[in-house]
């Protein structure tokens, strides 16, 4: 999908939103990806779309070097929000191509060669994207979802609640989406973590969640479900 025909306001809005937490279209430096999207624009975005405008000015300052920037040009529709999964595959693939001459030997113990992992992750990501796309095409009947508020209680006041939140958010399951969280004081300086999530009923059970969260046994003493609503 990408930003589509970048001349319309709708797509400029998408670009603006996409660039809110990114400096460039791809990665951390200006690349051909920026050039492609830049050239698809008819001019500078309006001032109220300040993320897009900031990026436009930044890329514009590289105008004389456009042809020498790194990266490979792709069609403009390849970039953007929904293309994130597929574009993640390209840098890893390029890495592989770059250093295939020196460390091609088989690493029996798989110690520190994370290229393979990256490639694997990228492969999984693209496969998942393809599956998702296929699932979308089929248009299944509306999926039953529930919104759950969980309470995660630590062992004592010395438990690092930020770490707890990080661990909890690190749980990834198909059909599970984490939402807002806050710390709620329990007393004696102890805080419990209240975190909301949305789950697809068929895919994620509360038992699975509880099992996974209490698996962080160094941090988590117990876990409760504070609220459970069908959407």
């Amino acid at each position, binding site marked *: 999908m990408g930003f589509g025909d970048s001349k319309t306001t709708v797509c400029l809005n998408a670009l603006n939103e996409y660039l*809110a*937490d*990114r*400096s460039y279209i791809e990665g*951390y430096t200006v690349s051909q990806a920026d050039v492609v999207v830049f050239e698809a624009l008819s001019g500078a975005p309006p001032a109220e779309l*300040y993320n897009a*405008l*900031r*990026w436009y*000015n*930044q890329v514009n*300052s*590289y105008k004389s070097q456009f042809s020498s920037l790194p990266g490979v040009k792709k069609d403009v529709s390849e970039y953007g929000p929904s293309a*994130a999964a597929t574009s993640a595959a390209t840098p890893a693939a390029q890495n592989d191509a770059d250093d295939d001459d020196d460390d091609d030997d088989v690493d029996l113990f798989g110690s520190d060669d994370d290229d393979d992992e990256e490639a694997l992750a990228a492969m999984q990501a693209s496969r998942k994207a393809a599956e998702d796309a296929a699932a979308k095409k089929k248009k299944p009947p509306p999926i039953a979802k529930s919104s759950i508020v969980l309470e995660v209680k630590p062992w004592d006041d010395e438990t690092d609640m*930020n770490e707890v*939140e*990080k661990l909890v*958010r690190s749980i990834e399951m198909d059909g599970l989406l*984490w*939402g*807002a*969280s806050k710390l709620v004081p329990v007393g004696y300086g102890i805080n419990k973590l209240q975190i909301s999530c949305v789950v697809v009923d068929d895919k994620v059970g509360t038992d699975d969640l509880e099992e996974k969260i209490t698996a962080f046994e160094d941090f988590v003493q117990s876990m409760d479900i504070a609220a459970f609503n069908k959407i």
Partner: protein
Amino acid sequence: MADIKQDLKALARFLDVKGVKVNVNSETKVPVLTLNGMTVTGLSSVANYLAKTAGRRDLIGGNDAAERAAVSQWLEYRVTEIDRCHSEKDVSTVLKELNSYLETRTFFLGERVTLPDLLIMYGVRSAVSLLTFQEKEKFMHLSRWCDNVQSIEGVLQKQQTPVFFVKNPLYAGVQS
């Protein structure tokens, strides 16, 4: 909230200037740099001196007088605002201020990395790393800039772990 000595050493390593010695006066917190028998005092002067020694005039604004003045102004901000944060409230004021400044900018000055990007990033990274994900998202422009600067090769030293930012927004409607 920052370790001036470590920050200047990191800067020297980023610029590949060797044989640098940095001492920080424990009372006044003023850094003194010794390099090849020369002594330079004060964070701003040390940073400028290092950039010139490394031949990186682009980092201090090049030949553009206005940009060079802006570089000194932001280095002054680091010394007077960031290094003098005493309470959590001070820190959050600074972060808020930087966030709103960076809203319309990729880097502090112009379209390229300059000294203020490096030294202010070094200065706030410990504070940013203590933020929750929700707060990081609230300071989205600061987070974007911080993530971008710390990803430039050589900016972070081996022993410094990058601040972790999530790739996609998690919360609805928290951005300020």
